[in-house]
């Protein structure tokens, strides 16, 4: 029989009577855990480590590009840098960190004690973790000879036939394939877990129409994972057959098609963007109402829009392939489908604005990041609509304009919302508040750095600077822009250091948070901070979308109105 007292103290670093344990015991506890909260934290911590690594790769690229004819890194190393940066950020930072938050929050929000398949959950995490390690093993063991490593250098979308054995000798591409395959197994496992948890583990009264929007969006995201990560897994298996068994899927010499790989990759690749952005929407859906002191506007419309985005996103993949040369009919179809995504997305933005409208807004750090997200996501969406039009894309495809556009989505929207989520749920996870003062520094530094880097990055793109070049001539007119962009990247790096400092400082010195520091409304705030392994002593019963509002205001409960 274990008691629950030690758990909270261990995480909160509390001074109470937790028996001191050896390092080995602590490692054993974390390796063998099947608790969704610990697994969620492991996901988040491992993703943060990879975030730092991939961020350093980005900085190295920016140093190389800061001035023309630079030789800070060699061309070969530059190829590896952008490949590893992209692959790491998507598969070993983005997916794990979002799954980590989902793991941590979903059972708490629906009043469950754990995920549906706790052991599968642990397995998924370890697969991702080992996948990331395998990817970076390539730096030391790439070609099979110790010390003569080469990392993958075929770009994160690894177009055929560059990946074929004759053009990509050695094992560097195999490292990419295998680690992405491993990450795919993990993602599918996590997604199965999330859907089964949401369908089968809700507490009494938690109808689908009462679920927090975060849970809804994670469900949609998980359904998307099934139909997008699976095709990638299939394509990776084909690529492995090509490379190991000599089959001809993408071998143009034997009649195979390189374009087929593009289709397969982007059938995964574009919905993947929505797999990443839907959790960001999910965080916004929880954070914006709480700090506007209003219930979310248009709950059913938000759910419908999320499901709509899920469906439409499955039919837009080939807008990544306008420059490949498709028929006019397919071009038109993919232009229209891509623009159609703007409709449900627009609904979401208007609903967030309507939620803020007339609210009593509290500008906490989490809310600041959310507002930054709203603005930047709008801009990113607009450049997306620009690129969705095929003739425009023919001009700017594969230029820095595209790089700026998708970094606006990935950094300006997803990363901003992730930061907001850290500030918002950190008290729940550790029992301590993050410092608002350091947080404000983090926000403003990061905001300035972000806009300097990615606003200006559109300009060299329009001036014709192609992506993935390792250096450029001085007389192209890109010089000054690249220098400023690299400066902005440095400011973002400083902001990230401030953020990490805040994480560590608050863990030990932060103000002790009660169970409900934000006066919020969803179930996770009814558990202690940090929650004990069993989450809730009694299974909660909910009667509305905002169960904690009902407890705090029994005379005016939501339950009367729903």
């Amino acid at each position, binding site marked *: 029989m274990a008691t629950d007292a030690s758990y909270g103290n261990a995480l909160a670093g509390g001074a109470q009577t937790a028996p001191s344990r050896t390092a080995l015991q602590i490692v054993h506890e974390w390796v063998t855990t099947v608790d969704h909260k610990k697994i969620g934290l492991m996901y988040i911590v491992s993703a943060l480590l990879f975030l730092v690594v991939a961020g350093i790769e980005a900085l190295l690229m920016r140093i190389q590009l800061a001035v023309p004819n630079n030789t800070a890194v060699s061309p070969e190393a530059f190829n590896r840098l952008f490949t590893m940066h992209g692959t790491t950020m998507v598969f070993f930072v983005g997916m794990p960190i979002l799954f980590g938050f989902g793991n941590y929050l979903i059972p708490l929000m629906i009043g469950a004690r754990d995920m*549906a*398949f706790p052991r599968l959950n642990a397995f998924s995490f370890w697969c991702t973790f080992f996948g990331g390690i395998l990817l970076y093993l390539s730096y030391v063991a790439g070609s099979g000879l110790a010390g003569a490593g080469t990392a993958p250098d075929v770009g994160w979308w690894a177009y055929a036939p560059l990946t074929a054995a004759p053009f990509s000798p050695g094992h560097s591409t195999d490292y990419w394939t295998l680690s992405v395959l491993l990450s795919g197994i993990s993602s*599918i496992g996590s*997604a*199965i*877990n999330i*859907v*089964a*948890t949401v*369908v*089968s*583990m*809700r507490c*009494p*009264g938690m109808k689908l129409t009462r679920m927090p929007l975060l849970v809804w969006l994670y469900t949609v995201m*998980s*359904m998307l*994972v*099934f*139909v*997008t*990560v*699976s*095709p990638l*897994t*299939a*394509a990776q*298996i*084909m690529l492995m*057959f090509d490379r190991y*068994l*000599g*089959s*001809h*899927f993408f071998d143009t010499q*034997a*009649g*195979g*098609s390189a374009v*087929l790989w593009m289709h*397969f990759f982007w*059938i995964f690749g574009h919905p993947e963007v929505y797999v990443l952005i839907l959790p960001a929407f999910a965080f916004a859906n929880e954070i914006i109402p709480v700090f506007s002191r209003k219930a979310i506007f248009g709950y059913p419309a938000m759910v419908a829009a999320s499901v709509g985005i899920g469906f439409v996103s499955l039919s837009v993949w080939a807008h990544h392939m306008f420059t490949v040369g498709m028929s006019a009919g397919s071009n038109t179809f993919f232009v229209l489908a891509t623009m159609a995504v703007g409709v449900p997305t627009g609904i979401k933005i208007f609903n967030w604005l309507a939620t803020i409208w007339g609210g009593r807004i509290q500008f906490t750090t989490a809310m600041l990041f959310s507002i930054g997200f709203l603005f930047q996501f709008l801009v990113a969406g607009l450049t997306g609509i620009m690129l969705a039009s095929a003739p425009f894309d023919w001009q700017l495809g594969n230029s820095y304009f595209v790089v700026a556009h998708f970094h606006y989505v990935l950094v300006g929207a997803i990363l901003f919302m992730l930061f907001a989520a850290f500030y918002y749920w950190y008290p729940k996870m550790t029992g301590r508040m993050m410092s608002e003062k350091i947080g404000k520094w983090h926000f403003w530094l990061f905001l300035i750095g972000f806009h300097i880097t990615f606003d200006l990055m559109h300009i060299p793109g329009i001036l014709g600077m192609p992506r993935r070049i390792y250096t450029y001539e001085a007389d192209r007119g890109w010089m000054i822009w690249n220098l400023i962009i690299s400066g902005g990247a440095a400011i973002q790096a400083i902001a990230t250091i401030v953020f990490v400092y805040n994480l560590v400082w608050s863990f030990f010195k932060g103000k002790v948070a009660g169970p409900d520091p934000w006066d919020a409304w969803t179930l996770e705030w009814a558990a202690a901070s940090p929650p004990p392994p069993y989450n809730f002593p*009694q*299974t*909660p*019963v909910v*009667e509305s979308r905002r*169960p904690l509002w*009902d*407890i705090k205001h*029994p005379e005016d*409960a939501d*339950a*009367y109105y729903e």
Partner: protein
Amino acid sequence: MATSQYGLLTQQPLEPWELPSRGVVGMLCLILAEAAIFLIFVVAYIFYEGKSLSGPTPAEVLKIPIFSTICLLSSSITVHFAAHALKHNKTRQTSAWLAATVALGTIFIAWTGMEWYELIYKEGLTIKTNLFGTTYYSLVGLHATHVVVGLLMLSLSLAFSLLGWQTEKHYNRLEVLSLYWHFVDAVWVVVFLVVYVFGR
């Protein structure tokens, strides 16, 4: 669990709260994901149909596997009966039906093995030969892998059943396994139609 934790006035008594089994939901999700994987392989097969630069072609070397198809499809029925028998705790019947399922599945996989043997050693068709070989072996092989995994699980279930360890408490698990097996059979229908009927 019956009363509200929060002492909130309930407008109406809480309705009975029953949710679907997590095993079934999890398996359905896995099936969705696997179906997407198969879809990609089927698309590749259809896309490359008739684009091989050299022989042999499907029409020359493939025979319609009617007997093994019947075996595999009827194993779907036997596994259903096995689960049904377990629900009513008739363990002997369960064992018998499971044994029949495993036997039928084994016949199927043995037939596939023989087909591959002939193709490789008599017709000289390997995964390297041409696009047909590439897509054929990967699609049928992917399906065969799923059959083998299913057979392993079914054999385990059969062993437990014979040892008397499997009781009606485990009905849910066998139901999940039978769902998987139905899926493997359904995929074979698609593979059969694409490869052996329309693809020849």
